[in-house]
Each structure stands twice: as structure tokens, then as C-alpha cells.
């Protein structure tokens, strides 16, 4: 039973990683950049919904919507002000800018909300589910379902909707997409909007599970989700799901059965081993280099 319960906990943590990793993967696929500030958008999302629950007294679901809106705007503004001027710059310059944005968000949060730890209220109002001796918390169920819904929605969006197809076109070949009349800037903005809205969802879910909120809350899940995106093959949506779930399960299992302190080391060691066997991640596309 302990095994099954750990497995389910792993799935739910992995679902959150997968939702965050989607933001990394989509931005990487389309803008070819590592958006290091993504983890901090999670933190902003969590703070906004904390404020709206405590200070404005909104119901949790409304708080979630408000934080999604705020993060969407934030993501688009960050892209417009910080990343768009660097569209043709070297990838390292963009990476450093993203790190700068990450510091900026953390320190603005520090000024607004101070470094005092806030205890995040869970947004899930129903209790745990008991099946025999197995207990599944409401947060677990909600995060797994949310992840599945988001994955299906996003897959449909990228295959059926016009904007989604435009996103795939831009990620395939930016110049060709532009020649076909697709506005690259608009598409990238949409990508950031979706990624940041998902980050808000992930932030609220993550903080419902681990209710400690400080300005650096986003950085650890951010790094883990980035790892998950690479594990599954960065740029691929199903890969992100696989990578996220795998990472979550490995983390919970190594915490439960091997060592509490070494769980992060084990997670990263698995990443290294997988990249050695499959250098482009589990479901990543193999890129052949033309000379």
C-alpha cells in the first residue's frame, strides 16, 4: 500500500512538474531560448492568488483565475520588454537576460511581500479520498486531473487551432513561417501568454501541496521542471508529460526508499544517465547536422 501511495504522490508531483515544464518546452521550441525566469513566474502566480484569497477574500477558483490573468500579462510584458529586443542576439545573451529577469522578479517580490514565509492556503476544498487503507488527498487528485486536462487541451490546440498551427510552423522554420504570413512576434507572445498562465496554475497547485511561500519558492520547482523538459526531450509536448511524471515518481520514491537528503542528487543522476543513453531526451527529435 505504501508503494501505491508513493506512486500516486509521485504522479501528482510529476503532474505539476509537467505543467511547469510545458512553459519551458513551448518557449524553447518556438523562441529557441531557455526562459530561466519561468520559475519565478510560478512564484508570482502563487503570491497573487495568496493575496487575493487573504486580502480580497475571493473564493479559491476566482483567485486562480486572477493569478492566471496577472501571470499572462506578466509573461507577455517580460517577452516584449526584455526578450524581443534580443531576438537576433546570441543565445547566451538571451540566457543572461532571462537570469536578470529572474533576479528582478525575485527582488520585486521581496520588496512587495518581504522575505517572511507565508503559509499558503490550499485551494482544494474537498477532503481526502479513502480506498481501503489508501489515502489520496484532494490536492493530489486535482493536480493529476488538471495536468491531464491541460495536456489534452494543448495537444488539441496545437493540432487543430489556427494559432496553434502557427506555433508549430514557427518552431519548425521561422523564416518559412514568416513568408507564409504568420506573425512571428505575435506567435511568440501567445506562447509566452500560455506558458505563463500554466505557470500560475502550477504555482497555485505546488503551493497547495507544499504550503511554504517565499520569494525564491519558484526556483527549485523551476529547475526541476526544466530538468523534466530536457529529460522528455525539450520541444515535445508528450515528452514533457513523460519527463515530468518520471521525475516526480523518481523524486518521491528516492525520498521514501533511499534517502531524504539525497533525493535531488538521485533525480539529477537519473537525468544524466538518460541523456547519456538518449542524448536528445526520451521523446526528443533527433537533429541531423548538415555540413
Amino acid at each position, binding site marked *: 500500500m505504501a508503494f501505491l501511495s508513493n506512486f500516486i504522490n509521485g504522479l501528482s508531483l510529476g503532474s505539476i512538474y509537467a505543467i511547469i515544464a510545458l512553459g519551458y518546452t513551448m518557449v*524553447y521550441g518556438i523562441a529557441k531560448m*531557455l526562459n530561466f525566469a519561468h520559475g519565478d513566474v510560478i512564484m508570482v502566480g502563487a503570491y497573487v492568488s495568496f493575496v487575493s484569497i487573504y486580502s480580497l477574500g475571493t473564493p479559491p477558483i476566482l483567485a486562480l483565475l486572477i493569478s492566471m490573468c496577472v501571470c499572462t500579462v506578466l509573461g507577455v510584458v517580460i517577452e516584449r520588454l*526584455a526578450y524581443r*529586443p*534580443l531576438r*537576433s*542576439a*546570441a543565445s*547566451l*545573451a*538571451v*540566457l*543572461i*537576460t532571462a*537570469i*536578470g*529577469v529572474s*533576479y*528582478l522578479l*525575485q*527582488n*520585486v517580490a*521581496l*520588496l512587495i511581500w518581504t522575505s517572511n514565509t507565508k503559509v499558503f492556503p490550499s485551494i482544494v476544498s474537498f477532503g481526502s479520498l479513502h480506498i481501503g487503507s489508501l489515502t489520496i488527498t484532494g490536492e493530489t487528485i486535482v493536480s493529476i486531473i488538471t495536468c491531464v486536462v491541460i495536456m489534452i487541451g494543448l495537444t488539441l490546440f496545437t493540432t487543430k487551432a489556427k494559432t496553434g498551427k502557427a506555433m508549430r510552423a514557427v518552431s519548425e522554420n521561422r523564416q518559412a513561417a514568416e513568408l507564409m504570413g504568420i506573425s512571428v512576434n505575435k506567435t511568440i507572445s501567445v506562447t509566452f501568454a500560455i506558458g505563463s498562465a500554466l505557470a500560475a496554475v502550477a504555482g497555485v497547485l505546488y503551493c497547495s501541496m507544499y504550503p511554504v511561500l517565499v520569494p525564491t519558492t519558484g*526556483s527549485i520547482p523551476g*529547475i526541476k521542471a*526544466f*530538468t523534466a523538459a*530536457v529529460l522528455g526531450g*525539450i520541444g515535445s509536448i508528450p515528452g514533457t508529460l513523460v519527463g515530468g511524471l518520471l521525475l516526480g515518481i523518481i523524486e518521491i520514491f528516492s525520498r521514501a526508499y533511499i*534517502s531524504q*537528503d*539525497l533525493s*535531488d*542528487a538521485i533525480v*539529477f*543522476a537519473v*537525468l*544524466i544517465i538518460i*541523456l*547519456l543513453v538518449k*542524448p*536528445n*531526451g526520451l521523446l526528443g527529435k533527433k537533429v541531423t*547536422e548538415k*555540413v
Partner: protein
Amino acid sequence: MRLWKSKTSRQNIITLAAVIIVFSAVFFMNQGGMLSSSLSGQLVPICVYIIMALSLNLTVGILGELSLGHAGFMSIGAFSGVLAVTSLGQAIGNPLLLMIAAILIGGVLAAIFGFLIGIPVLRLRGDYLAIVTLAFGEIIKNVLNCLYVTIDPDGLHAAMFSGAKLPGKFIINGPQGATVPEKLSNFGIGFVLVIIVMLIIMNFVHSKEGRAIKAIRDNPIAAESVGLNITSYKMKAFVISAAMAGMAGVLFAMNYSAIEAKKFNFNTSISVLVMVVLGGMGSLRGSIVAAIVLTILPELLRGFDDYRMLIYAIVLILVMILNSNQRFLQFKITLKKKITAMFRKKEAAKK
């Protein structure tokens, strides 16, 4: 004089001379007590970050591979340096010799880890390589965080979990970190180490290996097809870079009374990377200047305590955006031309 004729070695000599002059001036000012206490406290960290930036520049600027885990090598150097000083303290009485021994041991151990990590890492490319270096940095931090080492007359005893019954006195005590027996670092040692590291890198970059590495950076396929062994050259640069980071780690550790593994985290790696990128990839001079400025800047901004990291972040973003703005670059070039033209006119007028 032959050295003076080649442009690169002339540049190197100028850089080296400038560093020696500035550092000597600072050294004597410090001896004379002319520096404020906050600035003189920053001298050793400045040396540490100069070495870190130079060594990361070798990996990122010269070798062209993004490393996000450089602080890991620094921490290996730091912890092995502490172990070396504690266990050799009885045998070597002279503090200077003890420090040299610790720096060598820290450097060699970091080089060994650099080699072991390089085997898997250097097979990967681009962003995948970057994330694996990040992963190694986190693994090193995590493992050092669970490491317990004690010393007694029989020697060193180590364990990997808390609550282990180890005989003797703790040197490394898990998350609480390592206790440094005596403060051995000073600006003089840091100064000499910076000069040595600069000389090594300058020579390495202009050696046969250095040219091969730059060829690999610019076009790996072409380099391979003219018969360069890519992995072996990459490994050389990576190991040298790791060894230098290890030495910087020893210098850093010996400046404090205790060090914790979590000090050498992702943020430390990133701030060194920022120094390299702001200073200009592959430029030694740039790395040195950026390391000095970025180490002092947060201290200078201490007056605006709440806002200093915010200002740092904004400066970082603005510099990156300006540096890739075509109009700004054009403006810089015209400005440079105008200034040189002005000097020329003055000289012509004198004649």
C-alpha cells in the same frame, strides 16, 4: 621584443602589467590601512571571483560550451582544501606552505572530478550539455550537504548519513558545513594565484591545444575532419578549468571560519557566468574587470540595501539589451572613431 610584435601577446602583456600595477597599488594601500574595512574585506573574494571568471571563460568563451555548474568544482576545492589543512596542519607548520599544499590538493581533486564529469558531459551538445553541468553542480552540492567527516589520531573518518557514530572531532558536519581551522587566505596569496592563473590561461590559449580548441568551438565538424581529436582537446580545457575553480575554492574557503555546501549553489555558478558574459566571451581582460566590478557593486549598493539586487538585475538586463542593439553598437563604434580622431588631431597639432 619579438613578443611585443604579435598583437595578442602585446595585449596579454598589457593586461598582465595593468593587473600587477593595480594589485600592487591596492596591496600597499591595504598595508598602509588606506582602504575602508568593507573594501579590504572584499579583496580576497575579488581574487576568488577573478579566478572563477577566468576559469569559466576557458570553458564558455574559449571552448564554447555553456557550463552552469562551475560552483561545484569550487566547492570540491573548498572542502578538500579544508580537509587538507586540517589533516596536514600538524605536519606542515609554516602557514604559507600549508596554504600552497591545500591549493594544490584542492586543484588536483577538482581536476580529477572535472575529468570524471567531463567523460559524460563532453559527449553532449549545447543546451543538453548545459543542463548536465547544472545537474552535476547540484549533485555535488547535495552530496557534500550529507557528508560527515571527522578526524582523530587514527586519521579521517567519513559517513554519508546523519547520526553516524564517528570518532574524533567533526571537520565536515553535513548541512552545517566544514570548520576552517585557521584563516590562511590573504590578498598576497590571492594576488599571486591570479597572476599564475592568468599566465597559464594565456599560454594555453596560444598553444597548439588552444588553437585546436578554438577551431573546435568555431566549427566542430571541420575541426574533426582535419584530424583533431575533439573529445581529448575539450577534455584538456575542461580539466584545466575545473582545476582552477578548485584552487579558487580553496582560496575562498580559507578566508572564512566555516563554509557550507549550499553557498556553492546554482546562483554562484550563474553569477560567475554573468561575469564572463558581461566581460565579453573569450576576453581575459573583460572577465577580470567584470569580476572586480560585479563583486564590489553589491557592496557599493549596500546603502540602498533593499534595492541593491533589484538595481543589479536591471543593470544586467539593460547591458544585455544595449549590447545587442545594432544602433547602440554603431554609436559605440562612431564614438570610438571620433575619440581616436580627436587624439590624432592633437598629436598632429603638436608636431
